[in-house]
């Protein structure tokens, strides 16, 4: 029961951190809840399919199918996140935090929101399924333990994630939209650099792949705090120069675009 609750707790928390950021940065978007639920259901379904087909994926592309698949979903999620932030900045009235009625006819932010959530769930979900299924298969622990362990992990992860979400809203106050948007851009940059790391792991990217620094002494990869820092800012104790460059370029490009769009909007309203 214990290892199941720990693994589920960790994975659910990672999902919750992403959910909290995308949900609070799309505050006021019409039909947002439908997009969130669609994303959750799609993510859960995709997790099951991936769990069932992972052996096929692992033999594809000279054994590197999993890496290519993860690189693809990571790049997709990071671009969708950046896109959502840019769209929201463009259409949200910063005074009311409400989206202009005319702008809500575009289905784009709803689709990107669903895709981001589905990917967040897929990434962690198939791992949860395979881990739990393995324990059921070997009869290593009883059904009662699996169910209570899963519920405990799910509850603890969701509660901590929800606390983080409420805390962020309370702390940020009126600036919640700006702060969560910035956080989302950092998350997206982290995912983009993790996507590149997957291409390095797939042995198909060899430029600047030596570790740039080692901050293991400060925050060790694999620790709980490091995992959260990874989800939020893409933290790595031993990043390669390639990943750092990817991260920096992503941030510069998205913040520049975001700032430009913002000034265009100001000129329009002036």
């Amino acid at each position, binding site marked *: 029961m214990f290892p199941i609750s720990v*693994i589920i707790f960790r994975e659910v928390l990672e999902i919750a951190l992403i959910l909290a950021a995308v949900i609070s940065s799309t505050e006021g978007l019409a039909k947002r809840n439908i997009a969130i639920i669609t994303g959750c259901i799609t993510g859960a379904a995709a997790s099951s399919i991936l769990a069932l087909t*992972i*052996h096929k994926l*692992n*033999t594809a592309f*000279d*054994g*590197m199918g*999993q*890496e290519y698949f993860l690189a693809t979903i990571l*790049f997709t999620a990071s*671009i969708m996140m*950046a*896109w959502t932030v*840019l769209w929201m900045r463009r259409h949200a009235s910063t005074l009311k935090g409400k989206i202009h009625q005319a702008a809500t006819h575009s289905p784009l932010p709803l689709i990107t929101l669903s895709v981001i959530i589905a990917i967040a769930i897929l990434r962690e979900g*198939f*791992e949860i399924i*395979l*881990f739990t*299924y*393995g*324990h059921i*298969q*070997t009869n290593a622990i009883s059904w009662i333990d699996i169910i209570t362990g899963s519920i405990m992990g799910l509850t603890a992860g969701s509660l901590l994630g929800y606390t983080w979400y409420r805390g962020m809203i309370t702390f940020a106050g009126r600036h919640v939209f700006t702060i969560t948007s910035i956080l989302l851009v950092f998350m997206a940059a982290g995912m*983009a650099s993790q996507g*590149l*790391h997957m*291409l390095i*792991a*797939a*042995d*198909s*990217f*060899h*430029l600047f792949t030596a570790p740039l620094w080692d901050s293991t002494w400060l925050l*060790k*990869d*694999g620790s709980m705090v490091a995992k959260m820092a990874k989800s939020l800012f893409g933290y*790595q*104790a*031993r990043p390669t120069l390639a990943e750092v460059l*990817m991260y920096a*370029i*992503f941030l510069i*490009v*998205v913040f520049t*675009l975001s700032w430009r769009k913002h000034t265009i909007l100001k000129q329009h309203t002036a």
Partner: protein
Amino acid sequence: MRLLAGFITFLITFGASYTTWSGSYTYNVTIKNHQFEPAELLVPTDKRIKLTIHNLDSTAEEFESDDLRREKIIAGNSSTVVSFGPLSAGTYNFFGEFHPDTAQGKVVAQ
């Protein structure tokens, strides 16, 4: 957005063109009863390493190494490849995240 997409496309094509860059050293590891065999691998430094992992258990395992910065799910009764290196001299621990009590191993680069 187009700029970003262009950059990513560049990265991917550039990376792909490098695929056949150099030969790599291949090694095999099996997982049985949630244990790695061999649990210690001697590899040369400054070489690309391809590690084929054969999971003989019926349950899935996750090969994970913070030192090598690799994590990969392996389904039950199946095999996959983990690639890493060039490494500098040292010991790099790895473990099976689903059964960390028993599944422990290390790569020693020298």
